[in-house]
């Protein structure tokens, strides 16, 4: 009898919990569709092919950055070093490929080095975080400024023009109407999806976010997973750096300014919970599109760009407030 009483409430609670979760996962997509409909009503130019291309161009870098950050946030951690990794990568890229400042022309090999640099930055984040047991936001806050500072030290306040045709083609050449960079970003999405769904790392990341003590007890090498996830995120930021350098046609130390904010907004607006364990890279895609479509719509309506940071700030607060699972965190710091 007592057994029945204890089982029945948990059984009845399960379906409702699952249903709530499903709504939480679909809500961002519904918001996106509503947003598109609303903006089209106000300004029919929104739904033209030309504007879609513009949106995809604006979305490609936030998407790549958001993919990396999603893995970190899924673990319940945070990565504030987005701008550091991106800036350092973009600046090093501009110095390695055919450019206006030195005689280097490493081309593809240069991109490879940049990806390694990104991996190195992420690896450093992960090792310091795990081995010295420092909260990730503190480590990555430091790394943010170390990265940007290093980029500044390399450049000495200059900007370096990129002349490499392959890098430039990412922004200029088109396939099916969309720039190659957009296809590169979609390729990154595919890779992130595979890592998330079909690799041990992806499953472990979810397990860590769901409950790290349980994950550790069931034999998951928690420290190694964390270091790998930060390294992976670093590689994504480096790809973001390559895309940013291609889009601007140069490398400078201000290339990352404001990107952390957009990245965090996109991930949390997509519905990935900061407490970890819930969310996916596809939701980040939706989140990125919400952020980009909204700012595109604001541009169409003539709202000054400086207002958009403020709107993003409010979006972060609203999205986090709606998605946080408060039962799991009694103490919020």
């Amino acid at each position, binding site marked *: 009898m007592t057994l029945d009483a204890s089982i029945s409430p948990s059984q009845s609670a399960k379906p409702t919990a699952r249903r709530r979760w499903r709504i939480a996962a679909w809500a961002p997509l519904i918001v996106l569709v509503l947003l598109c409909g609303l903006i089209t009503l106000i300004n029919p130019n929104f739904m033209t092919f030309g504007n879609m291309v513009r949106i995809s161009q604006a979305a490609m870098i936030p998407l790549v950055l958001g993919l990396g950050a999603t893995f970190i946030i899924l*673990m319940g951690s945070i990565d504030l070093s987005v701008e550091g990794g991106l800036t350092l990568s973009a600046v090093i890229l501009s110095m390695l490929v055919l450019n206006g400042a030195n005689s280097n022309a490493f081309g593809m090999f240069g991109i490879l080095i940049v990806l390694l640099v990104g991996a190195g930055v992420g690896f450093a984040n992960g090792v310091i975080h795990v081995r010295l047991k420092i909260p990730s936001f503190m480590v990555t806050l430091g790394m943010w400024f170390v990265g940007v500072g290093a980029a500044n030290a390399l450049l000495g306040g200059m900007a370096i023009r990129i002349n490499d045709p392959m890098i430039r083609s990412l922004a200029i050449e088109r396939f099916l109407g969309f720039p190659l960079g957009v296809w590169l970003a979609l390729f990154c999405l595919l890779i992130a999806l595979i890592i998330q769904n079909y690799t041990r790392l992806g499953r472990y990341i979810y397990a860590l976010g769901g409950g790290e003590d349980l994950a550790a007890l069931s034999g998951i090498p928690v420290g190694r997973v964390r270091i790998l996830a930060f390294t992976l995120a670093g590689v994504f930021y480096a790809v973001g750096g390559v895309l940013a350098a291609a889009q601007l046609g140069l490398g400078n130390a201000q290339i990352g300014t404001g990107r952390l904010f957009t990245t965090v907004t996109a991930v949390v607006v997509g519905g990935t919970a900061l407490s970890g364990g819930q969310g996916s890279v596809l939701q980040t895609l939706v989140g990125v599109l919400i952020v980009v479509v909204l700012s595109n719509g604001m541009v169409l309506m003539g709202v000054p760009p400086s207002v958009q940071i*403020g709107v*993003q700030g409010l979006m972060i607060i609203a999205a986090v407030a709606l998605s946080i699972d408060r039962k799991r965190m009694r103490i919020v710091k």
Partner: protein
Amino acid sequence: MNSIIDTIRTDGLRQWLPLATLILLVILVGAFQPAFLEVNTLLQLASDTAVLFILATGVTFVIMLGGIDLSIQSMASLSSVVVALTLSSLGYGAFVFAFALGALAGLLSGIAHVRLRIPSFIATLAMGGVLSSAALVISRERSITLGESERGYLGWITGTLFGIPNVVIIALIVLAIAHVLQSRTRFGRYSAAIGAGEPAAYASGVKVDRQKIIAFVLSASFAALAGIILVGRLASGSPTLASELLLPSIAAVVVGGTAITGGVGSIWRTLVGALIISVVRIGMTFLGVNIFAQNIVFGVVLVAAVAITIDRSKIPIVK
């Protein structure tokens, strides 16, 4: 590695380490550059540290509770813009207005953090975005230089009293107020208790939420004051005026020995930390390190100081 950190942490050594570091640094820089130890240079150092110290003092209250405030630099910039814009019409009221705006922003951050239960680093990151957006909009993305008549209102910041720059005196008043708040009031005691163990503080009847909101109000108000001082020193306001000050401020708090996990710390330590940061900066400038590249050093110092001061027993799972 951990055993080294443990030995540094144990006994009183850890408590005096920041002060010893400061004295050592001063002697070191003085040995290379004897002019550094002259009274005028030291007063200049104190004036240059004032803004950093005020920002760091505000954020100390939040860190004592175990939270963080990443919006102080945006608040200081916004405050500088508000003062620069309203000084001609409001006179001295402009300072009060900017200060009140700071308190209001802190109240909003605190409410977002406490009522909506959003982690403080994300709530203040978002609030920082809102504030810097507001600063950009009202300044029309330009820096605002003050006219000759408006500069007349800045005497209390730019002047000197018995040969001591007023900025230093303001910083000392801030130090006194903050010290009293921290060590002589209920708020101060409760903050330390919450930082040391929130569930215990909650269970013994401390109104945790209220203390947290007060801490965020103090942090943003002090940031607004720092913005006001910056206007006085530079005779202009700009939406990006203080954006380089977030990292040094947090580094000052942590380097001084206040633990990022909360519970351990004091305003005195923050003063020592802010002076260390200033001396290190002067030392680096003396060595010819690029001012932007100095952020590399501050980033590393920040992480190292956190590694030494953090209380790992309080965070079984480090996220």
